[in-house]
């Protein structure tokens, strides 16, 4: 009995003490879309922040990216926006231009210990519009090449030296593609309808558009004009045509893979050891590991003609616009963003499958054990060609144009149709800006 009473008193005292600290605490809310295998890592990071910052308490809410983007603007309009939100590269500029995201002034960034120079420039630029900073990169992904080492050896290729440019790719792909009679593409009697093993298929629509985006970027294509040019789409240039034609030819001309590939059939074919190479995002790593393959991860090869580039994606922490901004909450939010994007936290985040956002992390000895570490060079030279406004308007039209080309529409015609579709959509996007 006595013991119970002591316990009760202790509990009440503890409760009061907690209540006391809670009063001094700044409560902030944080929305993010890391709902996959990366969720536990994000939750650990938030818990660690709360444990090390007694005066701030962050309540994190994981919402799938799609609904999160849908809910953000109504929440801002209703004055119910969270204090911190993670936004992806393909939507961030639109949210900035429509006035849903608040600027982070140089003073605020300095106070939170965020230095732009620390990050990969292309990632940092994604959160910058007109020289003003709106977001700090927290997460980065890219298009890479997975390749099956056993199939490389079978074809007499060096499994530690995968193709890195167009010439090497064409050579390797010829060796890797075999029909039912053991013939390679170009051999007399080669039958493309009975591929036994093949190099790689170029799928539709989104992943194919992503691959085409990377190769066109390697050809030096600018997809959409600058703000002064009214963001006029320009991806029907000769350089873009060359890139798209090359990718279309992989299936229909060279027969290095099926002409009717989908992203799903390519993933299956790679897992089953039928396709020797697979172009996909870094996020496929654990899936392929589970398939029990002996495979390597390499930078997406330079199939274009001008420079190295690959498709990259990213997430950024931003401050939504508040109807009545509370300076204490804004400061706490910036403290959280600053802490979350420090090298130490970024290193921990890479265990969830994302790439480093800063060179310091990429070159750290701790990161060297990560299977993606070999991509560090590519990362430093990656053009993350996302982040311009109306990306959705551009991207839908680009994917449709590439799909049409893969389905047999003449490449110049497919791209000029895509450009006029994108131009009309971007025009309307401009009209609806505040």
């Amino acid at each position: 009995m006595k013991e119970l009473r002591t316990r009760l008193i202790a509990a009440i005292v503890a409760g009061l003490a907690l209540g006391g600290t809670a009063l001094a605490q700044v409560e902030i809310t944080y929305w993010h879309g890391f709902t996959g295998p990366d969720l536990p890592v994000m939750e650990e990071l938030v818990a660690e922040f709360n444990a090390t910052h007694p005066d701030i308490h962050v309540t994190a809410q994981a919402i799938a990216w799609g609904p999160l983007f849908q809910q953000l603007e109504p929440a801002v309009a209703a004055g119910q926006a969270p204090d911190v939100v993670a936004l992806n590269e393909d939507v961030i500029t639109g949210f900035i231009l429509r006035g849903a995201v608040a600027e982070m002034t140089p003073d605020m960034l300095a106070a939170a210990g965020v230095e732009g120079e620390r990050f990969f420039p292309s990632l940092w630029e994604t959160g910058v519009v007109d020289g003003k900073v709106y977001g700090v990169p927290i997460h980065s992904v890219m298009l890479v090449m997975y390749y099956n080492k056993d199939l490389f050896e079978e074809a007499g290729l060096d499994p530690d030296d995968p193709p890195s440019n167009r010439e090497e790719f064409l050579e390797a792909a010829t060796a890797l593609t075999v029909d039912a009679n053991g013939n390679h593409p170009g051999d007399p009697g080669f039958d493309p309808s009975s591929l036994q093993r093949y190099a790689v298929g170029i799928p539709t629509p989104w992943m194919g558009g992503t691959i085409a985006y990377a190769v066109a970027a390697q050809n030096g294509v600018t997809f959409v004009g600058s703000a002064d040019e009214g963001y006029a789409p320009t991806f029907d240039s000769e350089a873009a045509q060359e890139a798209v034609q090359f990718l279309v030819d992989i299936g229909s001309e060279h027969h290095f893979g099926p002409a009717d590939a989908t992203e799903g059939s390519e993933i299956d074919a790679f897992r089953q050891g039928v396709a020797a190479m697979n172009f996909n995002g870094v996020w496929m790593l654990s899936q392929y590991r589970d398939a029990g393959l002996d495979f390597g991860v390499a930078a997406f090869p330079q199939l274009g003609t001008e420079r190295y580039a690959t498709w990259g994606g990213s997430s950024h922490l931003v401050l939504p616009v508040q109807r009545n901004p509370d300076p204490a909450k804004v400061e706490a939010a910036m403290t959280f963003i600053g802490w979350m994007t420090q090298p130490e936290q970024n290193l921990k985040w890479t265990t969830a499958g994302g790439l480093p956002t800063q060179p310091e992390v990429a070159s750290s000895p701790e990161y060297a054990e990560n299977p993606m570490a070999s991509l560090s060079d590519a990362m430093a030279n990656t053009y993350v060609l996302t982040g311009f406004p109306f990306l959705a308007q551009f991207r839908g039209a680009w994917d449709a144009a590439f799909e049409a080309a893969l389905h047999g529409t003449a490449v110049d015609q497919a791209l000029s149709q895509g450009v006029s579709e994108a131009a009309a959509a971007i025009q309307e996007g401009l009209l609806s800006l505040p």
Partner: protein
Amino acid sequence: MSGPSTDTAVVAPAAAASRPARRSRLRPRVDGHPLEPYLYLLPHAVLFLVFVVYPVGFAIYVSLHRWNILSDQQPFVGAEFYTRLLTPGTPQFTFFWKTMGNTALFTVITTPLLIVCALGLALLLHRPIPGRSFFRAVFFLPTILSVSVMGLLWKWMFENRTGLINVLLDMLPFTEPVAFLTTIGLAWVPIIVGTVWWTVGFNMVLYSAALAAIPQAYYEAAAIDGAGAWAKFRYVTWPQLNPVTLFATVTTTIASFQLFGQPHVMTAGGPLRTTQSVMMFITEEAFTRFQFSSAAAMSLMFGALLLVVTGFQFRLTLRDLGRGRA
């Protein structure tokens, strides 16, 4: 006040005796408060106003303005977004009517399938065969799946080259794999097969219940008149099922027009937007391109078209119903 009212044994028979009298009265009660009926209607009326009338009214407002949720100004543009839907050459015109056509095609194919297959299954399972409940459960079970689960399942079945069906087609002699997901026209096969498998159970249950409710005497009378199995179905079963057929046709048509999840998961609207439904396009306009006014105009246009189709269907079927009873 005192004695009898506390004695339930006395009150109860009296109340019971008065009940049949009230029931048989043809005129409505007049002893209640005149507002009483409206009180009963109030809960639904409130929900209807808040969740139907207000959103529709707001959508009309949004569709007539260039609406941006975060801006102070929502300039009035009148019927601009409707005009675009009716002006050839605009992206809205091109894709709205293209996806509208896709959706109509899907509806025209799936609705009869979902009625005929459901009726067929219900008739088969109406006979007292062993394991009847088991089979009913088997056919009904898919309806509880979410559209994403069902979509992924059938996508895996029909996946180009590596799907189960293509693996089988590859193994069997005389058949070749078919690129279902990327061939114009064929991309509808997984969507339609999956949808029928997924939703046929609901209509089947409706038909099963209706079949059980047909009086056995009708069949006996028909047998005496010398009716065979077909004549019994044609002149007894089918007319008796008419109300259910009307209900199932209307609800299935509306559900089919709202096609979204199946192509979203299986084909992403491809190849070349040939399986994109109008709901997918409206969602894309609203939440990918943030063109809320345009999307609102499309939704209202779509809603109006759906009303016309449903009204037409009602008239046709009601006429049939009248004939069935005559």
